[in-house]
C-alpha cells in the first residue's frame, strides 16, 4: 500500500500545484532570510574590523611615542598621557575583547542585535558593571529580524498547516473517503501513510533548499558536520511535531474549516501566546530587581566609600602587602586610594549584581521548563545556541571579558607600584583576549525532547485510533 500511496500522493501533489507553490515560497523565504542573516554577520564583522583598525592606528602612534621615549626624546603633554606610564596604557590603550561570530551565526540573530561584540576593559573604571548594550534603534529590536530562525519557527508551521490541514477532511468532503473506506484497508493507517509521505516530501524540500542556501551563502558550516547534522535533524523534528499535531487534528476533527481554525489556534498558542505569556509571567514571578534601585545603591556605596577612603586604604594594603611601598607613599597615594576604593566597590556591589544573575537564571529555568510546552521556545533556544547568539553566550562573554580585565589589571598594576615604565617589550607581551564558545549547545538533548513530545502527543491522541480498524469515526 505504501508504494502505491507514495506514487499517487506525489502525483496528486504535483497536479494540484502544491509542490510548486511550496517550492517557490520556501525558496523565496529562505533566500531572503539567509541573505539577511549573512548581511548581519557581515555588519558585525565589519564593525569588528573597524575597531581593530582603530586600535592598530592608535597602537602604532603609541609605539612610535614609546620608541621616542626609549630613545630619550622629550614629549609634549602631561605625564599622565605618556604611554610609558602603565596606567596610561591600562586606561587609554586597552586591548579589544572581541566576540567573533560563529560559523552558524547567520542562522539566528538571537540577542546579537542587542549586545556589543567588542569591549575594551580598562585598568580602572567599573569593569564589573560594564554596559554591553549596543547602539541600536530600539524599534528594530521590537520588530526583530527576518532571519532563518524566524522563518523556521514562525513560517514553517504555517506552511505545514496549509499543506496538511485537510488531508483527510478533503477526502471526506470530496466524497472519495466512502469509496476508500469500502476497500480492505485500515483507513487510519492509510491517512498516516499519506501524512508520512507529505512529511518526507516537505522535510526533503526544506532540507534540500536549506543545504542549497548554505552552499551558496555560507560554505564554512560544512566543516562542522556534527552541528550541521544536529541542526538539520532538529528542524526535521520541529516539522515532525507540527505534522503530528496536524495528524491529530485531521483524525479527531476531520472538517476542513474546523481543522484549519484549530491548527491556527495551536499555532497562535505555541508560537505567540505561550511565549509571550511565559515571558510576562517569568518577569512577574522572578522580577529582576530594578536597575534604578541598583544605581541608587551603587551611588550610596560610592558616597560611603569616599568618606571612608582612608580606612579602606589600610585594609587594602593589608590584603596586598606586595604593593605597599616603603617610600614614595605620597606619590602613589592616589592610585592606592583609587584601587582600594574600586576593590571595595567591587566587593560591595558583587551581591547586588549577583541578584540579577540569579533572577535571570531563575527565569531561564522557567523557560527551560516551558520549552517542553511550546516547541517554538525549544526551537528558539536551540537555534540561538547553535548560532552562538543566545543570552547564555553573551553572559559568558561578559564573564570572559571580566576575567580578561583582571588579567589586564594584574599585568599593569604591579608595574605601577614597582615604579616600572612601560616599554616596547611590555607592549609585545600584553595579555590578549580570545573568545571561546564555552556554552554547550545541547542540541541532541533538544532533539530528544522534541521527538519525545511528538511521540507522546501522537500516542496519547491517536494511539487508540491505530488499533481501531473500523472507519466509523472518520466518516462521521
Amino acid at each position, binding site marked *: 500500500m505504501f508504494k502505491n500511496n507514495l506514487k499517487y500522493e506525489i502525483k496528486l501533489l504535483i497536479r494540484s500545484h502544491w509542490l510548486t507553490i511550496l517550492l517557490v515560497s520556501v525558496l523565496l523565504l529562505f533566500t531572503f532570510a539567509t541573505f539577511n542573516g549573512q*548581511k548581519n554577520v557581515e555588519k558585525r564583522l565589519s564593525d569588528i574590523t573597524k575597531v581593530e583598525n582603530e586600535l592598530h592606528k592608535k597602537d602604532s602612534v603609541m609605539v612610535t611615542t614609546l620608541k621616542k621615549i626609549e630613545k630619550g626624546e622629550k614629549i609634549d603633554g602631561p605625564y599622565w598621557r605618556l604611554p610609558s606610564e602603565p596606567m596610561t596604557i591600562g586606561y587609554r590603550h586597552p586591548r579589544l575583547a572581541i566576540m567573533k561570530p560563529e560559523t552558524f551565526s547567520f542562522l539566528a540573530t538571537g540577542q546579537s542585535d542587542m549586545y556589543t561584540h*567588542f569591549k*575594551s576593559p580598562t585598568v580602572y573604571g567599573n569593569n564589573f558593571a560594564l554596559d554591553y548594550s549596543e547602539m541600536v534603534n530600539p524599534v528594530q529590536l521590537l520588530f*526583530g529580524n527576518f532571519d532563518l530562525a524566524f522563518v523556521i519557527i514562525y513560517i514553517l508551521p504555517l506552511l505545514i498547516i496549509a499543506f496538511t490541514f485537510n488531508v483527510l477532511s478533503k477526502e471526506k468532503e470530496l466524497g472519495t473517503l466512502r469509496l476508500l473506506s469500502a476497500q480492505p484497508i485500515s483507513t487510519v493507517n492509510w491517512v498516516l501513510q499519506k501524512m508520512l509521505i507529505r512529511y518526507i516530501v516537505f522535510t526533503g524540500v526544506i532540507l534540500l533548499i536549506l543545504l542549497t542556501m548554505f552552499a551558496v551563502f555560507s560554505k564554512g558550516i560544512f566543516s562542522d558536520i556534527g552541528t550541521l547534522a544536529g541542526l538539520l535533524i532538529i528542524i526535521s523534528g520541529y516539522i515532525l511535531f507540527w505534522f503530528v499535531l496536524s495528524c491529530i487534528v485531521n483524525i479527531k476533527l476531520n472538517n476542513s474549516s474546523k481543522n484549519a481554525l484549530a491548527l491556527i489556534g495551536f499555532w497562535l498558542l505555541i508560537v505567540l501566546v505561550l511565549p509571550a505569556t511565559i515571558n510576562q509571567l517569568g518577569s512577574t514571578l522572578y*522580577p529582576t530587581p530594578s*536597575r534604578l534601585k541598583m544605581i541608587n545603591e551603587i551611588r550610596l556605596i560610592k558616597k560611603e566609600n569616599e568618606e571612608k577612603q582612608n580606612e579602606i586604604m589600610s585594609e587594602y594594603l593589608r590584603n596586598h602587602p606586595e604593593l605597599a611601598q616603603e617610600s614614595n607613599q605620597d606619590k602613589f597615594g592616589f592610585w592606592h586610594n583609587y584601587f582600594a576604593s574600586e576593590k571595595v566597590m567591587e566587593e560591595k556591589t558583587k551581591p547586588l549584581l549577583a541578584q540579577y544573575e540569579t533572577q535571570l537564571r531563575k527565569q531561564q529555568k522557567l523557560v527551560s521548563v516551558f520549552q517542553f510546552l511550546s516547541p517554538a521556545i525549544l526551537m528558539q533556544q536551540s537555534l540561538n545556541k547553535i548560532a552562538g547568539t*543566545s543570552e547564555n553566550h553573551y553572559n559568558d562573554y561578559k564573564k570572559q571579558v571580566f576575567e580578561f580585565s583582571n588579567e589586564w589589571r594584574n599585568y599593569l598594576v604591579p608595574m605601577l607600584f614597582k615604579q616600572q615604565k612601560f616599554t616596547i617589550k611590555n607592549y609585545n607581551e600584553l595579555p590578549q583576549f580570545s573568545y571561546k564558545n564555552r556554552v554547550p549547545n545541547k542540541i541532541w538533548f533538544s532533539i530528544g525532547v522534541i521527538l519525545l513530545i511528538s511521540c507522546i502527543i501522537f500516542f496519547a491522541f491517536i494511539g487508540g485510533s491505530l488499533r481501531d480498524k473500523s472507519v466509523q469515526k472518520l466518516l462521521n
Partner: protein
Amino acid sequence: MIHVIFKELKELARDGRFKIVIGISLILLVIATITGVNQYQKNNEQYINSVAKERSIWETQGAKNPHSAAHYGTYAFKPQFALSLFDYGVTKYTGNSIFLEAHSRNEASFSEASDQTSLARFGTLSINFVLIYLFPLIIILIGYNSYTKEKEHQTFRLLKSQGVHPVKLALGKWFAIYIPIFCLTLIVFLLLGIVLSNLENLAFFSWNSLLILFVLYALYYLIVTTLTVLISMWSKSSGMSLVSSLVIWILFSFISPKVATNFANKNNPYPSKSEFNTRIAEDKKNGLDGHNPWNKAAKKLEEETLKEYGVDSISQLPFNYAGYRMQKGEEHEAKIYEKHYAILNDIAIQQNSTYKKLAFLSPFIPVRFLSMDIANTSDNLHWKFTKAAEEYRIKKQAFLNNDIKDNSKLGDWNYKMSAQRFKELPKFSFTPPKLSNLLTENKESLVFLGFWLLLPFITMIWASKKI
C-alpha cells in the same frame, strides 16, 4: 440593510467558536492588565523613590569641589508614563536612566531586555499585544466566510433573487463583522480607562490619549474588516478565504515589520557604539580640552580671553580662569556630542521613516508606531528624553563650573563649594510632548492609514457590484 446585519449577528451569536475565541482573548486581556498594572506600579514606585534618593544623594554630598561633584554626577530618570502599561512599546529595549557627568554624554543604560531571557524576543503579553495581534484574528474568524458561506450553501442565488442591492448587502455584512469587535474594543478601553483613573501616582494620564488610541485601533479594525470581506467576496471557498486572510494577517503583522527592519538596517546602518565613541573622541582631541592647558585650542582661548579683558596673565582676570576654561571646554564638548547625536538621531529618523514608508505594505506599521507614540513608549519619546537629559546636564555643568569661576581663586584646587549650594541646582523634570504635537509628527502614518481605510473600502463597494 438592518436585516442583513441582524441576521449575521444572530448567526455569529450562535457560533460556539466565536464564544471560545472571545473568552480566550478576554482571559489574556485580564492577565495582561493584572501583570501590566502590577509592573507599572512597581516601576513607578521605584522611579519615584529613585528620583527622591538620587536628589538627596546630590543634596547631601557635603562641601565639595564643584568639579569633583561634576564627576560624581547625578542621574536623570525617565518617568513611567501611565499608558506604558497599555503598550510597552520599546521601553524594554531602552534604558530608564541616564548618568549625567562631566565631560561626557552618556547613553541610557540597563535596558530591561538585557536582564531577561531571549524569550522576550517573542514579544510580551500586554493589552496592546492582544489588541494588535489577536483582535484582527477575531475579525477574520467572524468574517472569512461572510460571502463564501452563502456561496457554499447556495443561499447566495436566493439572496440575489430577492432583489437585495449588492452594495447594501456588502455594507450589511461589513457592519455585522465590525460591530462586535467595535463593541469589544470600546469595552476594553472603557475598562482600561476606569482601571487607570483609579490607580495612584499615575503620571501623565489623559483620557484624550486613551480616546485617540481607541480611535486608532478602531480604525485598524475597520481596515482589517474591509479586507476580510473583500477576500471573502473574491474567494471560491471558505477554506481559501480563511487561508488568504491569515496570509494577509501574517504579512501585515510579522513579515512586513521584519522586512522593514532589514531594509532600514541596510539603508541607514547605525554605527557601533565604539565607532561612535571613536568619532567623538577624534573631534574632542582636536578641540578645546578643559583639563589640559597645553592643548592648542586651550592656548588660543587663553590668548583671546586675555586680550578681551586687556590683561597680561590669567591671574589678573576678575574670575578664576580655570573654571572659565572648564566651562568653555564643557560647552565645546557638548557641541561635539550634539553634532554626533544629531547624526545618530538622523539615522534613527531615516530608519523609522523607512518603516513608515513600508506602511504601504502593512497598516500594522503605522498603527504600531502611533500606538507607541501616544502611549509615550516610543523611540521618538526616548530621544526627547535623552535630549532633555542632555540639556539638563549642560545646565548642571554650567552651574558647577561657574561656581568655580566666580567663587574660587586661580590654582586653588582645594576650593570647596558649600554644602548648601548643591540644593540650588534645579531639579530635572521631563514632560512628554503634547498629543497634538505627536499627531502632527505622525502625519505620514496618518495619511497611510487614510489610504488603507479608503482604498480597500472603495474596492469592496466596487467588487460587491461585480459578484
